[in-house]
């Protein structure tokens, strides 16, 4: 039984994983990720779901940097993702840029667009900023659907398959490694970001912007930076979607996507990397679970098929409301509670 964590050196005090138990859990998780494709025998459906979770995790971490850590509400996630997806798609399809190079380019371009639409945060916060980003969402998607010469308008943009040598990479099994490598990198970068002055400035702005300003944090510059960093990862998500699916359409990036990602970080846990992962997994698996449930009930209720989309939509709304009322700190809090229970077991109360 551990009565507490006592560090005897700065090195151990500042480590990302401070106890052997934390390191063990991380090791187990990484081992699981590495073994997963083989555990499921390379079957496409579980791999597809896992890839969805990986892509969503990157996007959720990106949004969490902005909303959870810096406290700036954004409803523009879907549109920023569209910027990333279209940048990557257009560069590959029209200009023949190698696909792996389009991912960082798309991320940087999305970061620039994100910072541009972060400018209203100079004057606005809370509710008003949420509405401003909602407008950004609508305006960007309008531009995407009406700028035919560049984006192809409402028609789908076909992206050539990503190749390494003669290997086509966007199969479920091969892309799995790309997605989860990038997800791991994103998590590592973000965890380290909040150990630097930049990350701490973000948190200071979230907790009390006036106090942060008094302490010498340039609030405006750091808010823009938060928008840029957040959009960077969102751009990665968009680029990955473009290459994985091989097709980019505006319908994948509507306001519903912004809401979905906000739901992920709220259900997972605001201001937490593992929370982003939990939320991404939960919001990806819930509709999949309902679809399978509906299919298996088809024999009992023949009308089930047309009911499934409504059921997904209803449970989406219901889950958000229930989490907000019953567990506002999300799955992360539940996970922490479990850990704390066992930390003092059998004397926990």
């Amino acid at each position, binding site marked *: 039984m551990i009565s507490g964590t006592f560090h005897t050196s700065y090195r151990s005090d500042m480590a990302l994983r401070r106890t052997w138990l934390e390191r063990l859990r991380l090791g187990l998780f990484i081992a699981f990720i590495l073994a997963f494709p083989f555990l499921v025998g390379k079957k496409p459906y579980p791999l597809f779901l896992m890839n969805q979770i990986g892509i969503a995790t990157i996007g959720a971490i990106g949004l969490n940097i902005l*909303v959870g850590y810096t406290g700036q*509400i954004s409803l523009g996630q879907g549109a920023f993702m569209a910027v990333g997806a279209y940048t990557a798609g257009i560069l590959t399809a029209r200009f023949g840029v190698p696909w792996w190079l389009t991912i960082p380019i798309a991320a940087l371009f999305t970061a620039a667009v994100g910072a541009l639409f972060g400018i*209203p945060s100079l*004057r*606005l916060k*809370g*509710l*008003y900023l*949420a*509405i*401003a980003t*909602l*407008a*950004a969402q*609508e*305006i960007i998607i*309008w531009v995407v659907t*009406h700028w035919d010469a560049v984006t192809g308008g409402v028609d789908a943009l076909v992206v050539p398959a990503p190749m390494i040598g003669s290997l086509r990479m966007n199969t479920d099994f091969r892309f799995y490694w790309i997605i989860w490598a990038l997800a791991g990198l994103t998590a590592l970068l973000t965890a380290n970001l909040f150990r630097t002055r930049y990350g701490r400035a973000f948190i200071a702005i979230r907790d009390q*912007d*006036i106090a942060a*300003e008094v302490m010498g944090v340039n*609030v405006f510059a750091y808010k823009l930076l938060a928008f840029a960093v957040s959009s960077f990862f969102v751009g990665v998500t968009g680029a990955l979607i473009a290459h994985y699916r091989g097709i980019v359409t505006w319908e994948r990036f509507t*306001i519903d996507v912004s*809401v979905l990602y*906000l*739901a992920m970080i*709220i259900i997972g846990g*605001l201001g937490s990397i593992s929370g982003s992962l939990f939320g991404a997994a939960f919001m990806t698996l819930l509709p999949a679970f309902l679809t399978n449930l509906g299919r298996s009930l088809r024999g009992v209720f023949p009308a089930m098929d047309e*009911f499934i*989309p*409504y*059921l*997904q*939509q*209803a449970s*989406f*709304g*219901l*889950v*958000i*409301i229930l989490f*907000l*009322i019953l567990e*506002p700190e999300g799955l992360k809090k539940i996970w922490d509670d479990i850990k704390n229970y066992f930390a003092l077991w059998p004397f926990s109360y």
Partner: protein
Amino acid sequence: MDTFIQLTLTGLTNGIILALAALGFVLIYKASDVINFAQGEFLMIGAYMLYAAIVQIGLPWSLGVVVTLLVAVLLGVLVERLVLRPLIGEPIISVIMATIGLSSLLQALVRMIWGSQPKAFPAFIPSTPVNILGATIGADRLWAIAIAVVMMLLFAFFFQRSREGIAMRAVADDQQAAMSMGISVKKVFAWAWSIAAMTAAIAGALVANIIGVGPHLSHFGLRVFPVVILGGLDSIPGAIIGGIIIGLLEAYVGGYIGGGLNQVISFIVLVVILMVRPYGLFGQEIIERV
């Protein structure tokens, strides 16, 4: 000139209906500082209720309207009691997300009951074309303007004269002071939500009469944002004037410039207003420098 009058009339009707939808939105914000992302769904449910009462159950018009309004009140009170009250004192993002979740839930329920196909609304107001200054406009649109204006006058009367209206203004002004004067803030919140749902239902019925009943009616929920920001989030006259301005603007841009710009012009205006004058034309000015 004819086009101009035509566009003005169309814009005016759209604007008035937008204003009616925005009215409930502003009311909720004023009373309880909550942004209601489910306002569009309230509007949609109102239209569907009227449809159900009249077409599916076969009630006469007058009774159908009464039933619709009663259901709207019930919906408003339930939402306030079950979703918003547990979240009092929570951060803004929680409240925003709760109403977004609510909109998703209501949308799904409506689709489960009535399906996702739009339905023709039995025209309870004749749509015979009327000639005004050389432009033709459906009589239903004129009626919509008239009904909306009557509604707004009733509103003004309610807020100026009735006991509940005055209590509501007091709560909007200062919750603690109102509470210490013996006003039940909880009751006022319930009032605000039920009145908002009622105006939304009326707006929904008016729109449905023009474009039919369908899940697409909930799009009005997003179109309300430019209106309320332009007019000022906490200003009722602002919602009305903002609605008319946005309605006219969309009509003129659609008529003279085209290219689909009318779908997005209001959001561009919204961003500009937020940058220049976040409190809108008539909103209360709150200055905070960081």
